[in-house]
């Protein structure tokens, strides 16, 4: 790997780590979801410092060229990320549905309660009138 490329990768990795930290500190990203991005940046950092790892793995896995290997890993990483996102979204959907249902039920019960109170007041007042 050329020195130029390695420096570029190193700079990108460090820059991305800073972006992740900033986004977490601005409360736009939860720390537990930032972990995977930090892991990927770390991997990039390691590869830029030790590119021999990529060459070694290419031989080991029987992939034709190192770039193919990197693309493969990148695609796997993105697929895993997207899959876990759909799992997270599913859990959130269920929770939102639960909240919607409960809120609506409480609204109804509140309305019923208010309606019952109004009825009581009307009964009281009409009772007083009749008593006169």
């Amino acid at each position: 790997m050329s020195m130029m490329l390695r420096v570029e990768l190193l700079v990108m990795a460090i820059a991305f780590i800073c972006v992740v930290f900033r986004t977490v500190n601005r409360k736009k990203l939860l720390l537990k979801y930032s972990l995977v991005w930090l892991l990927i940046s770390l991997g990039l950092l390691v590869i830029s410092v030790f590119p021999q790892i990529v060459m070694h793995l290419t031989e080991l896995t029987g992939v034709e060229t190192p770039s193919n290997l990197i693309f493969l890993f990148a695609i796997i990483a993105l697929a895993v990320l997207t899959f876990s996102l759909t799992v997270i979204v599913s859990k959130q959907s269920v929770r939102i549905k639960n909240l919607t249902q409960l809120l609506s039920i409480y609204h109804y019960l509140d309305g019923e309660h208010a309606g019952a109170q109004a009825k009581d007041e009307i009964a009281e007042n009409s009772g007083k009138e009749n008593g006169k």
Partner: protein
Amino acid sequence: MGKNMPQGLKVLLIIPAFNEAKNIRSVVAAVREYAGRTADYQLDYIVINDGSTDATAQICTENKIPSIMLVHNLGIGGAVQTGYLFAAMRQYDIAVQFDGDGQHDIRSLDKLIAPILSGEADFTVGSRFLEGTSHFQSTRLRRVGIRFLSQMIRITAGIRILDTTSGYRAASRRVLEIFAKNYPEDYPEPESLVALSMEGVRVREVQVNMFERMQGVSSISAWRSVYYMLKVSLAIVCAGFQRRKSQCQ
């Protein structure tokens, strides 16, 4: 929940509880007894039932214990934040976190809130380690972990706290409003300290008494503690990169 004192100071005890059916009655009984004796301030308490799957909810209703039943389990961070939100809405002057498992001694409450009442600090942490006179014992691993976190926080946030994982803490109105808006989810005790230092909040550690866990099992297993340790360390480092606001009166 307490006598009505229009001019008086209002203190709220936030009691998070997850599956504490065995302990919650005695915990609340101790609090009620103590509340009956305090004259300097009005002591209220609210149990936050974090989606318990045992009889906790039933016991609270049967014994007329003021409690907020969370619709979903949110974890200790979310549950405690609910308490802070409630305190902010009801305009309490001081909010105190008090464990629902009986580990905290209510009799240490006056010591805990004294620095806030005197205006010395905005946030106090009840510590087991300050004077080494507590009955509390912990596993070796936990003690090493706690000391490690303490060092990390000292380096990144400049705050010297020995008992960083203590859940016995008191917050002034300013701090409880901060927490009502933002509070960490997992293992929030160390992270929240860093967040406070970034806001320029004065934090003080106070020696308090704690007991052994009465009944039931601690919610964190050995492996999960390792995961939490890493995550919290990362959170501390990350939060340390923020620009710190200077301490103000």
